[in-house]
């Protein structure tokens, strides 16, 4: 039985297109048709750029016909969280307010790099307003629904990007991760997610949330797709002076070297408490497959999370000050009061958080002297129902939205690369396990993830196969 086009990985599509077994235009049309049929159910896309997709696909087909190299992602269809600039489109960032902005004059740098590599942009995906969200329940654009159970959240804030990949509405998508916004949708939707080292990928043309923490990331159904898209997108960018201070080596070439010799340990303490049996089993299965050593602990991850929370609130609040003073009523009520509260936070809180961040970086580096990859859960719960407000954790009933990032936020604080590896069990919602590396160790994380993929421990099967 031949697989449908929408089931194929980005690499496989590029290979088939380059081999002229089908055209990039046929791929784009197939995905646009599937989006038209299924997006009303999932609400993954807020904007479908059919004209752009067909034009880009046409250029790939023309290059192939002319005997030119169409690029390493020839014809691979992808979507972008709706905070990435696309030339000619308004960058809404999940808001009502930004709808009045003029269209972007050029693509975000990494979107332009994907286009140059032959990838085909299908459209922009739903997100929590201004990315201050873990569930993608957007007051203006509606909730994104989880392709594995439409009554549940796809996670956030890059929820549309997670759902698009899980539903086969893109071969891969771009998201951003500030406190977990790639890793949470990856966990709830059961797809691979990569949050690279802070400042590895250019943020030029990416609408900001928290400058100290914002990182561009990728969601996909195969590890090799994460690797190739990373290699295409990485590299210094004159439009983003922060980008390029760290440089990771190419990742795809070494992906099949195996995990032998890579030292792996699970994170204990804070990261091991309150786990449901399914989450504990997911961690154990990944740890077993990687011969993980005894559990290690990071010092004071609870305060690291608090510091990430504080930096987030203060920077996001100040960034939106003008909009909060003139258009507060147009904000999503779910985030408005938090933005205002952050704007009013005493500077001592913020500066202490930034000093803690500096100190914690050294503490974490010490732990990484003895280990290459740390394993931790991505979320403390499985995808919740869209109307759920609380969840049970460690014997207490806790507010849901405020605690989704319990395990992702501390890691964000010091900009470590994390690969979220999806674990599926029959009859259950998926989850993901964080593979955490030292700065610039994306290649190692991808090797480990590939090992898990090949052993069948982690996978990203489609939901909503219709």
């Amino acid at each position, binding site marked *: 039985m031949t697989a449908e086009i929408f089931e194929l990985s980005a690499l496989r599509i590029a290979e088939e297109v380059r081999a002229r077994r089908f055209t990039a235009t046929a791929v784009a049309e197939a995905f646009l048709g599937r989006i038209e049929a299924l997006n009303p159910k999932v609400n993954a896309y807020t904007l479908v750029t059919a004209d752009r997709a067909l034009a880009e696909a046409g250029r790939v087909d023309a290059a192939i016909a002319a005997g030119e190299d169409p690029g390493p992602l020839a014809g691979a269809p992808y979507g972008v969280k709706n905070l990435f600039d696309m030339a000619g489109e308004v960058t809404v960032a999940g808001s009502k307010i930004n709808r009045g902005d003029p269209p972007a004059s050029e693509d975000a740098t990494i979107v332009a790099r994907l286009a140059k590599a032959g990838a085909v942009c299908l459209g922009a995906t739903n997100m929590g307003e201004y990315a201050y969200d873990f569930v993608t329940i957007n007051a203006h654009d509606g909730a994104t629904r989880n392709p594995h159970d439409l009554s549940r959240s796809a996670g956030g804030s890059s929820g549309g990007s997670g759902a698009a990949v899980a539903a086969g509405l893109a071969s891969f998508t771009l998201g951003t991760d500030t406190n977990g916004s790639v890793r949470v949708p990856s966990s709830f939707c059961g797809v691979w997610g990569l949050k690279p080292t802070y400042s590895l990928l250019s943020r030029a043309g990416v609408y900001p949330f928290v400058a100290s923490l914002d990182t561009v990331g990728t969601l996909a159904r195969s590890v090799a797709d994460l690797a190739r898209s990373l290699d295409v997108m990485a590299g210094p960018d004159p439009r983003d002076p922060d980008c390029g201070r760290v440089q990771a080596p190419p990742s795809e070439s070494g992906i099949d070297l195996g995990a032998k010799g890579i030292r792996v340990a699970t994170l204990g303490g804070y990261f091991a408490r309150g786990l449901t049996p399914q989450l504990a089993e997911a961690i154990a299965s990944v740890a077993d497959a990687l011969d993980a050593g005894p559990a290690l602990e990071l010092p004071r991850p609870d305060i690291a999370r608090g510091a990430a929370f504080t930096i987030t609130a203060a920077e996001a609040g100040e960034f939106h000050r003008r909009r909060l003073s003139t258009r507060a009523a147009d904000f999503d009520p779910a985030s408005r009061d938090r933005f205002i509260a952050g704007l*009013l936070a005493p500077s001592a809180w913020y500066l*202490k958080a930034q000093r803690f961040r500096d100190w914690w970086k050294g503490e974490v580096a010490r732990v990484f002297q003895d280990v290459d990859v740390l394993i931790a859960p991505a979320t403390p719960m499985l995808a919740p129902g869209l109307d759920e407000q609380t969840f049970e954790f460690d014997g207490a009933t806790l507010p849901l939205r405020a605690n989704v990032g319990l395990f992702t936020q501390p890691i964000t604080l010091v900009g470590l690369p994390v690969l979220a590896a999806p674990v599926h069990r029959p009859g259950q919602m998926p989850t993901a396990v964080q593979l955490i590396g030292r700065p610039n160790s994306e290649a190692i994380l991808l090797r480990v993830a590939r090992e898990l993929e090949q052993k069948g421990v982690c996978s990203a099967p489609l939901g909503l196969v219709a």
Partner: protein
Amino acid sequence: MQINDPAVVAAVEAVSDAYERALLDNDVEALTGFFWDSPHALRFGVAEELYGVEAIAEFRKARKAAFLDRKTLRRDVVTLGTDLAMVTIEFEIVAFGNPRHGRQSQVWVQLPGDGWRVVSAHVSHRVTPQNAAAFNADDAGPFAAAAAALLDVPIEPAHRQGVAFNLGVMARIAGPLMAIDLPDSAEPAPRFIP
């Protein structure tokens, strides 16, 4: 005096049911109507002390409440004779995403000509470490108002409680952060590179 005469209990349960329905519907007129039409009527809320039926009515009118998710966990009715009853309810409600465990006590009296009316009521929430921040909002409120004025960011009256609540949450999270001792060598992480 007969305690818990079944007929009296049934009558009190009926008015209590009606009161709870009005609460879920935020039926302001009905809610006010359940109270004794007297300057001696009293209602202590979680954050307000209301003396007299007029103050109670004013409070109800100003309140934009949504109690849709309020769930009664337990209700006890004790009647003393034919005209006096105490109704106590434990309930669960989610406020600003935080689950709360509430207690409501009402004294009901059957008034000649008017029927059963609440003469005195008191509502409280159980304070736990998980929800304590919600109750610090009183401290955060004046700070938020002053800071907002200094920053020239007007806060709509309807948003003030939510902003104060979120500042309370931040204060709770910043508490342990401020308490930790860092070496002087730890500088704020972002550094300006000229």
